[in-house]
């Protein structure tokens, strides 16, 4: 049984924006990173899966339940953490989470117990009785995660869970997600545009762009290339490229920048040495870690078997836009 399966899933908003464009993908249980740049269709996909949005065409299933007809059964099994603020500031974390537990169908005593447990699980203690308006962003994110967990879902849908957190808060949130997913058998889908974060917790990545599937593969096949180093110099770029290539680096020229493949740490030293040798004026040296376009560009170094299985599906001409109602 696959966790999630979509088939030609398309969503067009009134006004002509196509958020999902014939997306077909099958996802197995685990911790899945849903990556894509802003506007790639991540949030739309999550909302369609939750039954909050009706797809224009195509179908999707979660736990083999059709999202179009079994919305309530699905939402009983799913916990959703939206990206935006969704907590009333004048209520306490306990109030909000226990109320939402009741709405999810838990009896009163069970709701109270689970609220206490889940808030402890996400790391909220005495402050859970205070009004949420006085919480830090990190604490609010924890409450949002707690309300998604309180009814003990089989699947968590997390939308940008590290948004607005400082580095320490991010680490803690990622660790929490990782533990929730790996130790308690809850499948997790984390939507994010920050690949660097997602790769720390996920074991499978689904990348979408422009509403289409770019690639769905285990994490390992994505990280064989760990990134690129962008180097910009005044005059003498050709000489730099020549020298770097001579030293065995894979180099691509991209506008004003020279992109060097980062396999390990050595290119840093080599670039430094070469720049000194040629006496070039170094303008910029920047590690472009895991930019999506780098990862999904034709990639000779990552020539393993996991090459975009769904590319044909995405390429298959999407049906002509049906007249959108409303």
């Amino acid at each position, binding site marked *: 049984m696959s966790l999630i399966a979509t088939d030609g899933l398309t969503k067009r908003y009134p006004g002509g924006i196509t958020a999902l464009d014939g997306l077909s993908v099958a996802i197995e249980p685990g911790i899945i990173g849903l990556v894509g740049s802003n506007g790639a269709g991540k949030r739309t996909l999550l909302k369609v899966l939750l039954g*909050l949005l009706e797809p224009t065409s195509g179908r999707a299933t979660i736990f083999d339940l059709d999202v179009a007809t079994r919305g*309530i059964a699905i939402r009983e099994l799913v916990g959703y953490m939206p990206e935006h603020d*969704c907590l*009333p500031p004048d209520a306490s974390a306990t109030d909000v989470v226990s109320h939402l537990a009741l*709405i999810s169908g*838990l009896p009163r005593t069970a709701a109270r117990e689970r609220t206490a*447990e889940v808030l402890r*699980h996400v790391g*909220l203690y005495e402050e859970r009785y205070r009004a949420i308006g006085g919480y830090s962003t*990190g604490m609010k994110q924890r409450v949002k995660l707690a309300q998604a967990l309180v009814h003990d879902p089989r699947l968590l849908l997390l939308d940008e869970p590290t948004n607005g957190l400082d580095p320490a808060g991010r680490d803690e949130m990622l660790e929490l997600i990782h533990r929730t997913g790996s130790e308690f058998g809850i499948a997790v889908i984390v939507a994010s545009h920050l690949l660097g974060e997602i790769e720390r917790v996920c074991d499978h990545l689904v990348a979408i762009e422009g509403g289409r599937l770019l690639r769905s593969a285990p994490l390992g096949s994505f990280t064989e290339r760990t990134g690129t180093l962008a180097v910009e110099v005044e005059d003498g770029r050709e000489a730099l490229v020549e020298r770097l290539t001579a030293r065995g680096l894979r180099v691509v020229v991209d506008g004003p920048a020279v992109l060097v493949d980062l396999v390990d740490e050595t290119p840093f030293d080599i670039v430094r040495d070469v720049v000194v040798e040629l006496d070039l004026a170094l303008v910029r040296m920047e590690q472009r870690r895991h930019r999506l376009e780098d990862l999904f560009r034709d990639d000779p170094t990552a020539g393993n078997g996991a090459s975009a299985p769904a590319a044909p599906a995405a390429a298959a001409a999407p049906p002509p836009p049906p007249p959108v109602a409303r």
Partner: protein
Amino acid sequence: MSTNPPVTRAGSIYDLGYRRYEGPRLGRAHAIRSLIVHSFRTTYGIGRSGRAKAAPIIFGAMAILPAVIIVGGLTIAARFGFDRQLDDAELIGFNNYYSSVTAIVVLFCAAQAPELFGRDQRHGVLALYFARALRRSDYALGRLIGFMLAVLVMVLVPMVILFLGRVLLSIDIGRAFGNNLPNVPPVFAQGFVIATLYGGLSMAVSAFSPRRAYATAGIIALFVLPGLVAGIVIGIGSSTVGTWLVLVSPNTILDGTNALFFDRSLGEEYFFVTIPGWAFLLAAVVEIALVVGLILRRFARITI
């Protein structure tokens, strides 16, 4: 796992265990019930901050005040031996109490209805509800019924005080009980119409205007402006088509149903009105149905 003591720093995450929930899930009916209870409590500020309690306490006190004064008057009268006369006296009685507190009910609705639909939309809480195992209509109806119940309690409590005062302070409790008992059905009927009509109208306004200030202003406008139209019609008087226009105002509808339930004639200002009493009741029912339909449509279509 970590051996850190769980109290070093607020907000740190420690693993104290996550347990699965194997117990029952009670489904949509339970969710709706919970929403009704929650809406009722939120409206009265129960379990909320002192500031959230201020408005319901003030308006509640204002609604009860006339009843308390009447009962107080009865008590004093009983002391001085006028109770025999007062048993039959009609000061502010059951049949005109409601119209004397209408303005307070309107203010209560205007202040508290935005606390439910408005608050959920303003703070994005709607997404958390709709992502759970219930229908959008379940959410809308739960909130709506909870608020209507709150208004019902608001208008019935003074009546209960009035009833108890009139019965218990009488020298012949049995007779007073018998005398006052026929008032109970019309009191409930009229209270029910007030709660559903005013509660429904103000919830509809707040469903469409998440901003609190707009919702409050809109609710007051909705109760005042049609009243002006009705007032003009009443002022002009007569004209058969014109008389039906009194039905545009929720206030005049309530005057009409009040007269119908208590089996009295309409007030003097309605001297020209030839509409039968049931027309007012029908107008109330139609308006309530319309309002419920609008609210359901709003939440069926809202994007979150």
